[in-house]
């Protein structure tokens, strides 16, 4: 888990660098904590998300292990991010097509950075779908994402994001199967064995 946190923080650093250049202001990202849940036990309250509606950027990955990645921000945080980046003053209901696309890009940058860090460190490679954006409760998002009941595990990364001194918390969740988790752990062990 520690090694994984390390890898994701490398990714977070890369993501922050790309985001900073895109929005031309300082963006800082860190992954302070990683937790593994059985999806049955995922308690929306434990994540501090309550029954709030969440903005989610979804992307599927295939490779040495398969995962469905979800970048989750409470809806109002997602809006703050877009507002900070675009300087727009619209309300949640008005979050337009173009702004949703922006949220997708932000999610894509963060997800790609984490995955590319993993690819570099573990010497693996992935294939991925393009990101999509949706707004729903965590329960519904999980139900919609688990087409495959063989992905009963959820690896949750807590993400701290600072744009222009405004601090935003979000989560990056990977839905994994047991074999995928085993593969991931095997790759990490191999990596740890090398150093």
């Amino acid at each position, binding site marked *: 888990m520690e090694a994984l946190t390390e890898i994701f923080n490398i990714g977070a650093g890369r993501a922050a660098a*790309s985001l900073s*250049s*895109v*929005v031309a202001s300082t963006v800082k990202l860190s992954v302070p904590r990683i937790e593994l849940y059985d999806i049955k036990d995922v308690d929306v309250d434990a994540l501090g998300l309550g029954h709030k509606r969440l903005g989610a950027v979804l992307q599927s990955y295939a490779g040495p292990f398969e995962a469905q990645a979800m970048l989750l921000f409470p809806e109002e945080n997602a809006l703050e991010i877009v507002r900070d*980046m*675009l300087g*727009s003053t*619209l309300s949640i209901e*008005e979050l*337009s*097509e*173009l*702004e949703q*696309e*922006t949220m*997708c*890009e932000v999610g*894509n*940058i963060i997800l*790609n950075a984490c*995955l*590319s860090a993993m*690819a570099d460190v573990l010497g693996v*490679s*992935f*294939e*991925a*779908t*393009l*990101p999509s954006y949706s707004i729903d409760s965590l329960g519904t998002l999980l139900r919609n994402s688990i087409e495959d009941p063989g992905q009963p595990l959820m690896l949750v990364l807590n993400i701290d994001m600072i744009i222009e001194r405004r601090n935003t918390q979000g989560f990056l969740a990977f839905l994994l199967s047991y074999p995928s988790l085993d593969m991931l752990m095997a790759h990490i062990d191999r990596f740890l064995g090398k150093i």
Partner: protein
Amino acid sequence: MSSVLSPSEESLHLSKMLPQIVNVMSLGLILIDAQRTVLLWNNWMRQRSSVVVDDPIGMGIEAVFVGGLPNALGIAIDNALKYGLPSLLSNALHGAVLPLFDYKKGGDQPERVQQSIHVLPLKGDGGTRYCVLQISDVSASVVRERKLRAQAETLKEQAFTDGLTGLMNRRHFDERFPLEFRRAKRQQTPLSLVMLDIDFFKAYNDQYGHPNADKVLIAVAQTLRATLDQSIEVIARYGGEEFIVVLPDCNEHDAGHIGEKLRASIENMQIPHATSQVSPYVTISVGLSSLTPDVTSSENLMLASVDAALYIAKHKGRNRVSSAARP
């Protein structure tokens, strides 16, 4: 001759059709290989791009565009070729990032195409990586969105403005006051509220009629605006003949001066008011409440206290300014 094609003929047919399909599509397609050499450049691109050479096939993608390859696109291409990860460049963050022009629009100065770009990794034989850039023209959406946004702003403004006086309406005040209150609390700065009411307004209405009463409301609003510092943002029509002003960074002493200035400015308009029991002219009563918010204070308590101060001003004989006890 049979019109039915065998599977092999069909795939041959399809491979002949593909280049045509690529060229009739109404989006830009560029294929580059792992060395970042351009392998395909479709008609859509040819018709719109401002490139260094007419036919960029065989060139490195970095050298193709006038002004070079945008940084974000370079990173996205890296992600596709090195890691097999797809990316998107949203229009809102990147705008018209590539030098693509719609030569049909804008005459001598062709319009730059608003773009949304997808960068997609492909795998060839033996795992060689390729990358497709798919460029969509979203200019129409951008224009539509700008229009919708402008309309939304106008509607919002209308919903928050008092139609008669042009001041903020009650709803707008209810939204703004808590923000000012919280800011004063955060920054530990004084905050004052001024609530004022036109004296014997019902009697004026009965005597002079509705249209003239409306004119008085408009005149009072104009005078308030003219008397107050232009930088004071929150002046609202609070009720029928009641107005409210938020004075940020203003203590009790200064609020007293401003209250008196407002009272005098209305009296000095000298609008005749035959049925007023306190003056031959239209006058106002003014209530004041000032504080530096701390943990014990609340917006509602402050509103209640300024309301009480206004009541005292009325009770003491109108056309005067009264301050509240500390809320």
